[in-house]
């Protein structure tokens, strides 16, 4: 039986680890490579390195971080943030990432999903979607709308329809990030995650709002997520990978125990 995955998300800005709250007000909280290695040794199942560097001329720093992580961490990790072309994706894969995470660029150019999927295989392509709860409109009837540019731009796209389209185009996995829940530590967006998980056949990763082990339990059971993304919870030492997994194991969720 497949285990539910716990994925640590590391936001990286100018080569340093940052934690954003509702995508603004980022703070430097450490070295991403050292943190990645520490979580790996603690038994994390997967990592996401998200480049939140503002200027594109700093992008090469991220590739250095990716190869340093790849040399020390022998679990899958994906890289996202600012990947606009198949060539951008190829660079991070070559630097040692297992998967690429596309978000805003895929909304602007959905062909990016299809092209990367054809070039590297669907299992390499993660479609990350930032979702805002909004009153239903004819274009976005589910009451969930896709936003881009770290939550600043509304697109009018329906989140459920976009998830299905992403799957059709060749994404191998979805990350569903609730802008409303992100950084609150008050729990994942359960209804949103469940509706997307039920709408597609590919794995769904819940993101945003994890503040304690119970929240992970909720989203991996009621929320029907295949994996849960955690950030502050680990970065600020509120809990550990071991504690999270023990809690889930004791409450009937199959996880990898190391």
């Amino acid at each position, binding site marked *: 039986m497949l*285990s539910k995955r716990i994925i640590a998300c590391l936001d990286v800005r100018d080569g340093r680890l940052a934690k954003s709250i509702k995508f603004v007000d980022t703070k430097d909280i450490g070295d991403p490579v050292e943190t990645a290695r520490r979580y790996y040794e603690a038994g994390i199942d997967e990592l996401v390195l998200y480049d939140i560097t503002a200027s594109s001329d700093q992008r090469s720093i991220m590739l250095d971080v990716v190869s340093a992580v790849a*040399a020390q961490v*022998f679990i899958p990790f994906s890289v996202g943030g600012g990947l606009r072309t198949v060539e951008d994706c190829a660079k991070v*894969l070559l630097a040692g990432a*297992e998967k690429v995470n596309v978000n805003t660029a895929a909304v602007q150019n959905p062909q990016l999903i299809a092209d990367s999927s054809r070039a590297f*295989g669907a*299992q390499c392509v993660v479609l990350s979607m930032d979702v805002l709860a909004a009153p239903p409109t004819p274009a976005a009837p589910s009451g969930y709308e896709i936003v881009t540019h770290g939550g600043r731009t509304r697109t009018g796209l329906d989140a459920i329809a976009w998830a299905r389209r992403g799957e059709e185009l060749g994404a191998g996995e979805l990350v569903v990030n609730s802008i409303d829940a992100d950084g609150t530590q008050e729990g994942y967006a359960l209804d949103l995650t469940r509706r997307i998980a039920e709408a597609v056949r*590919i*794995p769904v990763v819940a993101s945003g709002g994890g503040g304690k082990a119970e929240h992970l339990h909720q989203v991996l059971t009621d929320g029907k997520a295949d994996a849960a993304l955690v950030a502050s919870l680990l970065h600020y030492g509120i809990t550990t990978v071991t504690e999270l997994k023990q809690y889930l194991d004791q409450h009937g969720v199959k996880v990898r125990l190391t």
Partner: protein
Amino acid sequence: MIHIVDYKAGNITSVKRGLNHLGVDSIITPDPDILRRADKVIFPGVGQAASAMEVLRERGLDLALREVCARGAPILGICLGSQIVLDHSEEGDTACLGLLAGESKRFVLSDPALKIPHMGWNRIRVVRDHPVLKGVLAEEELYFVHSFYPQPEDPECVFAVCEYGSPFPAVIGRANLIAAQFHPEKSGPAGLRILRNFVEWHGGGR
């Protein structure tokens, strides 16, 4: 020295990084003549059977791999590399290398809650001892990501199975060929131990 076959498959550098970490020298090569002389070969793979076979044929690596295998050099196939060592793949109805009799098949899952690809950590059950699987513990999990799985004709060629809806072969092989559907290079300490076992293996039976 281990030769890693380069046919534009995604996880080649990851395999090399895993070997570096173990202190083992390796070379990534797209050259069939270099591959023919290899003592030990890792045949990785991420991607799609038809395009992988196309690249292998274009580069003459299909013939080189058959020669290396016939000569008795230890070969480790990984992921797609465990599928296309068989005769045929259902993925794109593709004729494959035929190093081992069998076919790779698409998952047919009746439970709609089971996602495809089978992506994540899962246990394997060793059904036949093999030097490369030495020390693998029952509760240890390995990292899988795939929508097809290898099914050798001869059940004696299955060394470990994994459960996803129903059991499927996770490690297959015969003589000097061993192949894993999971990614040892991405499976933490348990995976690195399997890589280490392969490095120490001389290609002899069990």
